[in-house]
Protein backbone atom coordinates (compact mmCIF):
# COMPACT_ATOMS: atom_id res chain seq x y z
CA UNK A 1 0.00 0.00 0.00
CA UNK A 2 1.13 3.49 -0.77
CA UNK A 3 0.96 5.67 2.30
CA UNK A 4 0.55 9.37 1.77
CA UNK A 5 1.54 11.42 4.79
CA UNK A 6 1.16 14.78 3.09
CA UNK A 7 -1.31 17.35 4.34
CA UNK A 8 -2.60 20.69 3.12
CA UNK A 9 -2.87 23.76 5.26
CA UNK A 10 -4.81 26.03 3.00
CA UNK A 11 -2.64 26.42 -0.08
CA UNK A 12 0.39 25.13 1.74
CA UNK A 13 1.19 21.51 1.00
CA UNK A 14 3.45 19.79 3.54
CA UNK A 15 5.12 16.43 3.06
CA UNK A 16 3.84 15.29 6.43
CA UNK A 17 1.91 16.72 9.36
CA UNK A 18 4.88 17.01 11.71
CA UNK A 19 6.05 20.55 12.39
CA UNK A 20 8.58 21.75 14.92
CA UNK A 21 7.03 24.31 17.26
CA UNK A 22 8.27 27.85 17.46
CA UNK A 23 10.75 28.53 20.24
CA UNK A 24 11.63 24.92 20.75
CA UNK A 25 14.19 24.47 17.98
CA UNK A 26 15.68 27.95 17.60
CA UNK A 27 16.50 28.43 13.91
CA UNK A 28 17.37 24.82 13.29
CA UNK A 29 21.14 25.04 13.67
CA UNK A 30 21.61 22.97 16.78
CA UNK A 31 18.85 20.44 16.26
CA UNK A 32 20.01 19.73 12.71
CA UNK A 33 22.89 17.83 14.25
CA UNK A 34 20.39 15.34 15.63
CA UNK A 35 17.61 15.21 13.09
CA UNK A 36 17.15 15.59 9.35
CA UNK A 37 15.16 18.77 8.90
CA UNK A 38 14.52 18.11 5.22
CA UNK A 39 12.24 15.23 6.18
CA UNK A 40 10.07 17.22 8.58
CA UNK A 41 6.81 18.81 7.43
CA UNK A 42 8.13 22.21 8.40
CA UNK A 43 10.15 24.02 10.99
CA UNK A 44 8.44 26.95 12.65
CA UNK A 45 11.22 29.30 13.58
CA UNK A 46 11.66 30.96 16.96
CA UNK A 47 9.42 34.04 17.18
CA UNK A 48 11.13 36.88 15.33
CA UNK A 49 10.64 40.51 16.19
CA UNK A 50 11.67 43.57 14.20
CA UNK A 51 14.63 44.27 16.46
CA UNK A 52 16.70 41.70 18.36
CA UNK A 53 15.45 40.92 21.88
CA UNK A 54 17.68 39.90 24.77
CA UNK A 55 14.91 38.01 26.44
CA UNK A 56 14.19 37.71 30.14
CA UNK A 57 16.82 37.42 32.87
CA UNK A 58 17.49 33.96 34.34
CA UNK A 59 16.02 31.75 35.76
CA UNK A 60 13.90 31.19 32.69
CA UNK A 61 12.69 27.62 33.07
CA UNK A 62 11.56 25.19 35.70
CA UNK A 63 10.27 21.67 35.57
CA UNK A 64 6.75 20.91 36.83
CA UNK A 65 4.79 17.66 37.03
CA UNK A 66 4.81 16.31 33.46
CA UNK A 67 5.58 19.77 32.17
CA UNK A 68 7.78 22.80 32.31
CA UNK A 69 7.36 26.53 32.67
CA UNK A 70 9.34 28.88 30.47
CA UNK A 71 9.69 32.61 30.37
CA UNK A 72 12.25 33.06 27.65
CA UNK A 73 10.76 36.42 26.78
CA UNK A 74 11.06 36.03 23.02
CA UNK A 75 14.84 36.24 23.00
CA UNK A 76 15.68 36.38 19.31
CA UNK A 77 18.22 37.65 16.84
CA UNK A 78 15.88 40.14 15.18
CA UNK A 79 14.61 40.26 11.67
CA UNK A 80 17.78 41.39 9.97
CA UNK A 81 20.05 38.68 11.34
CA UNK A 82 17.29 36.16 10.74
CA UNK A 83 17.20 36.98 7.05
CA UNK A 84 20.97 37.19 6.68
CA UNK A 85 22.09 34.22 8.74
CA UNK A 86 19.27 31.93 9.66
CA UNK A 87 17.25 31.59 6.48
CA UNK A 88 20.25 30.69 4.27
CA UNK A 89 21.24 27.96 6.71
CA UNK A 90 17.76 26.43 6.67
CA UNK A 91 17.62 26.72 2.90
CA UNK A 92 20.85 24.80 2.65
CA UNK A 93 19.34 22.03 4.75
CA UNK A 94 16.30 21.92 2.51
CA UNK A 95 14.01 22.65 5.40
CA UNK A 96 10.48 23.92 4.85
CA UNK A 97 10.30 27.20 6.72
CA UNK A 98 7.33 28.71 8.50
CA UNK A 99 8.32 32.01 10.05
CA UNK A 100 6.78 32.86 13.42
CA UNK A 101 6.44 36.57 14.13
CA UNK A 102 5.96 38.30 17.46
CA UNK A 103 5.44 41.99 17.95
CA UNK A 104 4.51 44.61 20.52
CA UNK A 105 2.36 46.67 18.17
CA UNK A 106 0.07 46.11 15.25
CA UNK A 107 2.45 48.06 13.02
CA UNK A 108 5.37 45.90 13.98
CA UNK A 109 3.55 42.76 12.82
CA UNK A 110 2.77 44.42 9.52
CA UNK A 111 6.27 45.71 9.03
CA UNK A 112 7.82 42.31 9.72
CA UNK A 113 5.53 40.57 7.30
CA UNK A 114 6.16 43.16 4.60
CA UNK A 115 9.89 42.80 4.88
CA UNK A 116 9.76 39.01 4.92
CA UNK A 117 7.29 38.84 2.06
CA UNK A 118 10.21 38.70 -0.37
CA UNK A 119 11.89 35.75 1.27
CA UNK A 120 10.92 32.99 -1.09
CA UNK A 121 11.81 30.17 1.23
CA UNK A 122 9.39 31.33 3.88
CA UNK A 123 6.35 29.26 3.02
CA UNK A 124 3.98 30.74 5.58
CA UNK A 125 3.79 33.05 8.55
CA UNK A 126 2.70 31.98 11.98
CA UNK A 127 1.54 35.03 13.89
CA UNK A 128 2.25 34.71 17.59
CA UNK A 129 -0.41 36.72 19.40
CA UNK A 130 -0.21 34.55 22.48
CA UNK A 131 3.19 34.70 24.17
CA UNK A 132 2.54 34.81 27.91
CA UNK A 133 6.02 36.04 28.78
CA UNK A 134 6.32 39.57 27.48
CA UNK A 135 4.92 42.81 28.82
CA UNK A 136 3.88 44.42 25.54
CA UNK A 137 1.78 42.50 23.11
CA UNK A 138 1.59 38.83 23.97
CA UNK A 139 -1.53 37.97 25.89
CA UNK A 140 -2.79 41.54 25.75
CA UNK A 141 -3.35 40.74 22.11
CA UNK A 142 -3.99 37.04 22.36
CA UNK A 143 -6.76 37.19 24.95
CA UNK A 144 -8.57 40.06 23.21
CA UNK A 145 -10.69 39.01 20.30
CA UNK A 146 -10.68 42.49 18.74
CA UNK A 147 -6.91 42.60 18.66
CA UNK A 148 -6.70 39.14 17.14
CA UNK A 149 -9.15 40.28 14.46
CA UNK A 150 -7.27 43.49 13.72
CA UNK A 151 -3.87 41.83 13.60
CA UNK A 152 -5.14 39.12 11.29
CA UNK A 153 -6.79 41.67 9.05
CA UNK A 154 -3.69 43.86 8.74
CA UNK A 155 -1.30 40.98 8.28
CA UNK A 156 -3.61 39.52 5.65
CA UNK A 157 -3.43 42.77 3.72
CA UNK A 158 0.35 42.74 3.82
CA UNK A 159 1.20 39.32 2.50
CA UNK A 160 0.16 36.81 -0.09
CA UNK A 161 1.69 33.94 1.83
CA UNK A 162 -0.48 31.67 3.99
CA UNK A 163 -0.94 33.00 7.50
CA UNK A 164 -1.49 30.96 10.61
CA UNK A 165 -2.69 32.61 13.80
CA UNK A 166 -1.28 31.04 16.95
CA UNK A 167 -4.01 31.18 19.54
CA UNK A 168 -3.89 31.60 23.28
CA UNK A 169 -5.44 28.81 25.34
CA UNK A 170 -6.01 31.18 28.25
CA UNK A 171 -9.54 31.99 27.12
CA UNK A 172 -12.89 30.24 27.61
CA UNK A 173 -13.93 30.50 23.97
CA UNK A 174 -10.99 29.72 21.70
CA UNK A 175 -13.30 28.87 18.80
CA UNK A 176 -14.55 32.46 18.72
CA UNK A 177 -10.94 33.52 18.24
CA UNK A 178 -10.52 30.99 15.47
CA UNK A 179 -13.70 32.27 13.84
CA UNK A 180 -12.41 35.83 13.87
CA UNK A 181 -9.08 34.71 12.46
CA UNK A 182 -10.91 32.90 9.68
CA UNK A 183 -13.15 35.84 8.98
CA UNK A 184 -10.18 38.17 8.66
CA UNK A 185 -8.46 35.89 6.21
CA UNK A 186 -6.24 33.54 8.16
CA UNK A 187 -5.45 30.27 6.40
CA UNK A 188 -5.13 28.27 9.60
CA UNK A 189 -4.81 28.52 13.35
CA UNK A 190 -2.32 26.92 15.71
CA UNK A 191 -3.63 25.73 19.06
CA UNK A 192 -2.29 25.99 21.61
CA UNK A 193 0.41 28.25 22.94
CA UNK A 194 1.40 27.76 26.57
CA UNK A 195 -0.83 28.27 29.60
CA UNK A 196 0.12 30.81 32.25
CA UNK A 197 1.61 29.14 35.31
CA UNK A 198 4.00 29.73 38.15
CA UNK A 199 6.11 27.97 40.75
CA UNK A 200 7.64 29.29 43.97
CA UNK A 201 10.50 28.27 46.21
CA UNK A 202 8.98 27.61 49.61
CA UNK A 203 12.11 28.66 51.52
CA UNK A 204 13.13 31.86 49.73
CA UNK A 205 9.46 32.54 48.89
CA UNK A 206 10.62 33.79 45.53
CA UNK A 207 9.29 32.74 42.15
CA UNK A 208 11.43 30.04 40.60
CA UNK A 209 11.19 31.95 37.34
CA UNK A 210 12.50 35.49 37.43
CA UNK A 211 9.60 36.70 35.28
CA UNK A 212 7.29 35.39 38.06
CA UNK A 213 4.97 33.57 35.68
CA UNK A 214 5.85 31.43 32.71
CA UNK A 215 4.19 29.37 30.02
CA UNK A 216 3.28 25.79 30.82
CA UNK A 217 4.08 23.21 28.14
CA UNK A 218 4.58 19.47 27.94
CA UNK A 219 2.37 16.38 28.47
CA UNK A 220 0.59 18.03 31.41
CA UNK A 221 -1.29 20.31 28.99
CA UNK A 222 -2.13 17.71 26.38
CA UNK A 223 -5.73 17.12 27.54
CA UNK A 224 -6.36 20.86 27.48
CA UNK A 225 -4.83 21.30 24.03
CA UNK A 226 -6.89 18.42 22.69
CA UNK A 227 -10.08 19.97 24.06
CA UNK A 228 -9.21 23.31 22.45
CA UNK A 229 -8.56 21.72 19.08
CA UNK A 230 -11.81 19.78 19.33
CA UNK A 231 -13.71 22.95 20.27
CA UNK A 232 -12.39 24.77 17.21
CA UNK A 233 -13.02 21.81 14.93
CA UNK A 234 -16.63 21.53 16.01
CA UNK A 235 -17.33 25.22 15.52
CA UNK A 236 -15.14 26.69 12.81
CA UNK A 237 -14.18 25.44 9.39
CA UNK A 238 -10.47 26.29 9.34
CA UNK A 239 -7.37 24.08 9.26
CA UNK A 240 -5.98 23.59 12.75
CA UNK A 241 -2.39 22.92 13.71
CA UNK A 242 -2.44 21.07 17.02
CA UNK A 243 0.23 21.80 19.62
CA UNK A 244 0.65 20.89 23.25
CA UNK A 245 2.29 18.00 25.00
CA UNK A 246 2.89 15.77 22.00
CA UNK A 247 5.52 13.18 22.89
CA UNK A 248 4.96 10.38 20.38
CA UNK A 249 3.04 9.17 17.34
CA UNK A 250 0.02 8.18 19.40
CA UNK A 251 -0.36 11.73 20.58
CA UNK A 252 -0.17 12.89 16.96
CA UNK A 253 -2.95 10.54 15.91
CA UNK A 254 -5.06 11.68 18.86
CA UNK A 255 -4.65 15.34 17.85
CA UNK A 256 -5.54 14.56 14.25
CA UNK A 257 -8.62 12.62 15.28
CA UNK A 258 -9.96 15.55 17.29
CA UNK A 259 -9.40 17.87 14.35
CA UNK A 260 -5.79 18.80 13.68
CA UNK A 261 -4.63 18.90 10.07
CA UNK A 262 -1.02 19.04 11.20
CA UNK A 263 0.70 19.17 14.58
CA UNK A 264 3.72 20.76 16.18
CA UNK A 265 6.23 19.23 18.51
CA UNK A 266 7.63 21.53 21.16
CA UNK A 267 8.95 20.45 24.54
CA UNK A 268 9.55 16.89 23.31
CA UNK A 269 12.44 18.18 21.17
CA UNK A 270 14.34 19.03 24.33
CA UNK A 271 14.13 15.47 25.54
CA UNK A 272 14.65 13.73 22.24
CA UNK A 273 15.89 16.02 19.48
CA UNK A 274 15.25 13.31 16.91
CA UNK A 275 11.70 12.64 18.05
CA UNK A 276 10.08 14.29 15.01
CA UNK A 277 11.69 11.92 12.53
CA UNK A 278 11.01 8.94 14.79
CA UNK A 279 7.36 9.96 14.87
CA UNK A 280 7.21 10.23 11.10
CA UNK A 281 8.50 6.67 10.82
CA UNK A 282 6.04 5.48 13.43
CA UNK A 283 3.18 7.17 11.59
CA UNK A 284 4.12 5.26 8.44
CA UNK A 285 3.93 2.05 10.39
CA UNK A 286 0.63 2.97 12.00
CA UNK A 287 -0.92 3.92 8.68
CA UNK A 288 0.27 0.69 7.07
CA UNK A 289 -1.07 -1.44 9.90
CA UNK A 290 -4.38 0.38 9.98
CA UNK A 291 -4.60 0.58 6.21
CA UNK A 292 -4.86 4.34 6.21
CA UNK A 293 -3.81 5.52 2.77
CA UNK A 294 -3.96 9.23 3.38
CA UNK A 295 -3.05 10.37 6.82
CA UNK A 296 -5.16 13.44 6.22
CA UNK A 297 -8.22 11.21 6.47
CA UNK A 298 -7.57 11.09 10.21
CA UNK A 299 -8.30 14.78 10.60
CA UNK A 300 -11.50 15.29 12.54
CA UNK A 301 -12.42 11.61 12.25
CA UNK A 302 -13.61 11.42 15.85
CA UNK A 303 -16.63 9.22 16.58
CA UNK A 304 -18.89 10.88 19.05
Amino acid at each position, binding site marked *: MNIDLSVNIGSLKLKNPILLASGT*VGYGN*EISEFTDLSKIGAIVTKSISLKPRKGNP*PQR*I*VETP*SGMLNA*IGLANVGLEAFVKEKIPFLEKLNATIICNIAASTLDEYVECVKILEYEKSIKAFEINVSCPNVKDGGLIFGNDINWVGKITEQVRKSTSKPIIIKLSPNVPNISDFAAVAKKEGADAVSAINTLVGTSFDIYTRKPKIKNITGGLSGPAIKPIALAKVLEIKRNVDIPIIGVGGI*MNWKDVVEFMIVGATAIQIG*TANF*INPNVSNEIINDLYKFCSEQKIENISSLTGSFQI
Partner: protein
Amino acid sequence: MHIEKTIVQFVEKVKPNIFLLKVLAKNISSKATAGQFCNIKVSETDFPLLRRPFSIHNIENESVYFLFDIHGEGTKILSNKKVGDKIDIIGPLGNGFNIDDNYETIFLVAGGIGVAPFPFLTKSLTNKKIITFYGARNKDYIYDKNLINVKYSTDDGSYGFHGNVIELLEKEIGKNDFHNIKIYGCGPTPMLKALQKFSLENKIDCELSVESAMACGFGICQGCPIETTDNSYKLICKDGPVFNSKEIIL
Protein backbone atom coordinates in the same frame (compact mmCIF):
# COMPACT_ATOMS: atom_id res chain seq x y z
CA MET B 1 27.03 15.44 20.09
CA HIS B 2 25.33 12.08 20.12
CA ILE B 3 22.13 10.59 21.41
CA GLU B 4 23.55 7.36 22.70
CA LYS B 5 21.90 4.34 24.28
CA THR B 6 24.54 3.59 26.86
CA ILE B 7 24.75 0.51 29.04
CA VAL B 8 25.26 0.67 32.78
CA GLN B 9 28.48 -1.01 33.86
CA PHE B 10 27.98 -0.15 37.49
CA VAL B 11 26.40 2.29 39.91
CA GLU B 12 28.11 2.44 43.27
CA LYS B 13 27.37 4.34 46.42
CA VAL B 14 30.82 5.73 47.12
CA LYS B 15 29.81 8.01 49.99
CA PRO B 16 26.60 8.20 52.04
CA ASN B 17 25.00 10.54 49.52
CA ILE B 18 27.33 10.24 46.51
CA PHE B 19 27.09 7.77 43.66
CA LEU B 20 29.50 6.80 40.90
CA LEU B 21 27.99 5.67 37.63
CA LYS B 22 29.92 3.99 34.84
CA VAL B 23 28.37 3.51 31.44
CA LEU B 24 29.58 2.07 28.18
CA ALA B 25 29.32 4.92 25.70
CA LYS B 26 31.55 4.48 22.66
CA ASN B 27 30.65 7.66 20.86
CA ILE B 28 30.53 10.00 23.78
CA SER B 29 33.72 8.69 25.33
CA SER B 30 35.66 9.15 22.14
CA LYS B 31 34.77 12.80 21.76
CA ALA B 32 34.59 14.24 25.26
CA THR B 33 36.97 16.77 26.73
CA ALA B 34 37.29 17.71 30.39
CA GLY B 35 34.58 20.06 31.63
CA GLN B 36 31.97 18.97 29.15
CA PHE B 37 28.74 17.45 30.35
CA CYS B 38 26.02 15.05 29.29
CA ASN B 39 22.26 15.32 29.48
CA ILE B 40 20.85 12.10 30.87
CA LYS B 41 17.36 10.64 30.48
CA VAL B 42 17.11 9.01 33.89
CA SER B 43 14.00 6.97 33.13
CA GLU B 44 12.40 5.26 30.18
CA THR B 45 9.04 6.86 30.86
CA ASP B 46 8.01 10.49 30.46
CA PHE B 47 8.64 11.00 34.17
CA PRO B 48 10.66 12.92 35.08
CA LEU B 49 10.09 14.88 31.91
CA LEU B 50 13.42 16.60 31.40
CA ARG B 51 16.90 15.16 31.12
CA ARG B 52 19.35 15.79 33.94
CA PRO B 53 22.73 17.39 33.22
CA PHE B 54 25.89 15.88 34.71
CA SER B 55 29.56 16.69 34.24
CA ILE B 56 31.74 14.03 32.75
CA HIS B 57 33.63 12.76 35.75
CA ASN B 58 36.12 10.66 33.89
CA ILE B 59 36.68 8.67 30.71
CA GLU B 60 38.26 5.24 30.58
CA ASN B 61 38.49 3.40 27.29
CA GLU B 62 34.94 3.38 25.97
CA SER B 63 33.35 4.16 29.31
CA VAL B 64 32.14 7.40 30.80
CA TYR B 65 31.92 8.04 34.54
CA PHE B 66 29.52 10.35 36.32
CA LEU B 67 29.67 11.35 39.96
CA PHE B 68 26.46 12.64 41.46
CA ASP B 69 24.71 13.28 44.69
CA ILE B 70 21.07 12.59 45.43
CA HIS B 71 19.21 15.80 44.94
CA GLY B 72 15.63 14.95 44.04
CA GLU B 73 13.61 12.40 42.12
CA GLY B 74 15.84 12.26 39.05
CA THR B 75 19.09 11.50 40.81
CA LYS B 76 17.30 8.99 43.01
CA ILE B 77 16.10 7.08 39.95
CA LEU B 78 19.60 7.20 38.51
CA SER B 79 21.09 5.79 41.68
CA ASN B 80 18.79 2.77 41.41
CA LYS B 81 20.04 1.67 37.99
CA LYS B 82 21.29 -1.87 37.66
CA VAL B 83 24.17 -3.32 35.69
CA GLY B 84 23.02 -3.84 32.11
CA ASP B 85 20.26 -1.22 32.22
CA LYS B 86 20.16 1.09 29.23
CA ILE B 87 20.42 4.82 29.73
CA ASP B 88 19.77 7.33 27.00
CA ILE B 89 22.44 10.01 27.13
CA ILE B 90 23.12 13.06 24.98
CA GLY B 91 26.72 14.22 24.94
CA PRO B 92 29.33 15.41 25.05
CA LEU B 93 27.81 18.86 25.46
CA GLY B 94 29.13 22.37 25.89
CA ASN B 95 32.63 23.73 26.02
CA GLY B 96 35.01 22.26 28.55
CA PHE B 97 38.00 23.76 30.29
CA ASN B 98 40.61 25.46 28.10
CA ILE B 99 43.90 23.82 28.63
CA ASP B 100 46.56 26.40 28.07
CA ASP B 101 50.22 25.58 28.00
CA ASN B 102 51.23 28.99 29.25
CA TYR B 103 50.56 28.08 32.82
CA GLU B 104 52.87 26.24 35.17
CA THR B 105 50.68 25.79 38.19
CA ILE B 106 47.08 24.72 38.18
CA PHE B 107 44.69 25.20 41.05
CA LEU B 108 41.62 23.06 40.91
CA VAL B 109 39.02 24.47 43.27
CA ALA B 110 36.07 22.25 44.04
CA GLY B 111 33.07 22.81 46.24
CA GLY B 112 31.03 19.74 47.16
CA ILE B 113 29.84 17.71 44.20
CA GLY B 114 31.55 20.36 42.04
CA VAL B 115 34.53 18.04 42.27
CA ALA B 116 32.85 15.88 39.62
CA PRO B 117 34.72 17.10 36.48
CA PHE B 118 38.18 17.26 38.08
CA PRO B 119 39.45 13.70 37.73
CA PHE B 120 39.03 13.97 33.95
CA LEU B 121 40.62 17.42 33.99
CA THR B 122 43.49 16.20 36.15
CA LYS B 123 44.14 13.44 33.67
CA SER B 124 44.05 15.93 30.81
CA LEU B 125 46.50 18.34 32.44
CA THR B 126 49.69 16.51 31.70
CA ASN B 127 52.98 18.03 32.81
CA LYS B 128 51.44 20.56 35.14
CA LYS B 129 51.87 21.17 38.81
CA ILE B 130 48.37 20.64 40.12
CA ILE B 131 47.06 21.55 43.53
CA THR B 132 43.50 20.58 44.30
CA PHE B 133 41.52 22.58 46.83
CA TYR B 134 38.52 20.58 47.87
CA GLY B 135 35.88 21.89 50.18
CA ALA B 136 33.05 19.74 51.48
CA ARG B 137 30.35 19.89 54.07
CA ASN B 138 32.07 17.27 56.19
CA LYS B 139 34.34 14.25 56.02
CA ASP B 140 31.57 12.00 54.74
CA TYR B 141 31.10 14.08 51.63
CA ILE B 142 34.66 13.80 50.37
CA TYR B 143 35.30 11.57 47.40
CA ASP B 144 38.86 12.20 46.24
CA LYS B 145 39.73 9.28 44.00
CA ASN B 146 41.79 10.27 40.95
CA LEU B 147 42.60 13.69 42.33
CA ILE B 148 46.15 14.70 43.10
CA ASN B 149 47.76 16.94 45.65
CA VAL B 150 44.59 17.60 47.53
CA LYS B 151 44.14 20.18 50.27
CA TYR B 152 40.87 19.75 52.11
CA SER B 153 38.48 21.98 53.89
CA THR B 154 35.24 21.05 55.63
CA ASP B 155 32.50 23.29 56.89
CA ASP B 156 32.46 21.52 60.23
CA GLY B 157 36.19 20.95 60.51
CA SER B 158 35.80 17.18 60.50
CA TYR B 159 38.59 16.89 57.94
CA GLY B 160 41.31 19.31 56.80
CA PHE B 161 40.91 23.02 57.18
CA HIS B 162 37.89 24.19 59.18
CA GLY B 163 36.13 26.66 56.91
CA ASN B 164 35.23 27.03 53.30
CA VAL B 165 37.46 26.28 50.37
CA ILE B 166 38.03 29.89 49.38
CA GLU B 167 39.31 30.67 52.87
CA LEU B 168 41.60 27.69 52.51
CA LEU B 169 42.76 28.98 49.16
CA GLU B 170 43.46 32.43 50.58
CA LYS B 171 45.43 30.89 53.38
CA GLU B 172 47.50 28.67 51.13
CA ILE B 173 48.21 31.17 48.39
CA GLY B 174 50.18 33.32 50.80
CA LYS B 175 52.30 30.42 51.94
CA ASN B 176 54.04 29.45 48.75
CA ASP B 177 55.52 31.24 45.85
CA PHE B 178 53.45 30.08 42.89
CA HIS B 179 54.19 30.99 39.30
CA ASN B 180 51.87 31.35 36.39
CA ILE B 181 48.81 30.12 38.12
CA LYS B 182 45.57 29.21 36.44
CA ILE B 183 42.47 28.37 38.43
CA TYR B 184 39.68 26.03 37.40
CA GLY B 185 36.69 26.17 39.67
CA CYS B 186 33.48 24.19 39.99
CA GLY B 187 30.94 24.21 42.75
CA PRO B 188 27.87 25.99 44.08
CA THR B 189 27.25 29.54 42.90
CA PRO B 190 28.16 31.32 46.19
CA MET B 191 31.52 29.57 46.11
CA LEU B 192 32.04 30.47 42.45
CA LYS B 193 31.24 34.08 43.28
CA ALA B 194 33.86 34.13 46.00
CA LEU B 195 36.33 32.44 43.69
CA GLN B 196 35.61 34.94 40.96
CA LYS B 197 36.30 37.78 43.38
CA PHE B 198 39.46 36.08 44.60
CA SER B 199 40.80 35.56 41.10
CA LEU B 200 40.07 39.10 40.04
CA GLU B 201 41.68 40.58 43.14
CA ASN B 202 44.71 38.39 42.79
CA LYS B 203 44.80 38.81 39.01
CA ILE B 204 44.83 35.08 38.44
CA ASP B 205 43.37 33.66 35.26
CA CYS B 206 40.36 31.64 36.20
CA GLU B 207 37.76 29.48 34.52
CA LEU B 208 34.53 28.58 36.22
CA SER B 209 32.09 25.82 35.45
CA VAL B 210 28.62 27.12 36.22
CA GLU B 211 25.21 25.55 36.62
CA SER B 212 21.70 26.40 35.63
CA ALA B 213 18.37 24.72 35.18
CA MET B 214 18.36 23.26 31.68
CA ALA B 215 15.69 21.90 29.41
CA CYS B 216 17.58 20.89 26.27
CA GLY B 217 21.28 21.15 27.07
CA PHE B 218 22.37 22.08 23.56
CA GLY B 219 21.03 25.50 22.70
CA ILE B 220 17.48 25.14 21.42
CA CYS B 221 15.37 26.22 24.38
CA GLN B 222 17.20 29.39 25.43
CA GLY B 223 16.48 28.38 28.98
CA CYS B 224 19.95 28.68 30.50
CA PRO B 225 21.26 32.23 30.01
CA ILE B 226 24.03 33.78 32.04
CA GLU B 227 24.66 37.50 32.07
CA THR B 228 27.97 38.54 30.65
CA THR B 229 30.06 41.57 31.54
CA ASP B 230 29.39 43.08 28.12
CA ASN B 231 25.71 43.24 29.01
CA SER B 232 24.37 40.39 26.98
CA TYR B 233 23.45 36.78 27.64
CA LYS B 234 25.30 33.62 26.82
CA LEU B 235 23.89 30.12 27.04
CA ILE B 236 25.40 28.02 29.78
CA CYS B 237 24.75 24.77 27.93
CA LYS B 238 26.22 25.82 24.62
CA ASP B 239 28.67 28.65 25.30
CA GLY B 240 29.61 27.15 28.68
CA PRO B 241 29.31 25.54 31.14
CA VAL B 242 32.93 26.73 31.50
CA PHE B 243 33.48 30.48 31.30
CA ASN B 244 36.37 32.77 31.98
CA SER B 245 35.62 34.34 35.34
CA LYS B 246 35.99 37.83 33.84
CA GLU B 247 33.32 37.18 31.30
CA ILE B 248 30.30 36.44 33.45
CA ILE B 249 28.17 38.02 36.14
CA LEU B 250 27.28 35.50 38.79
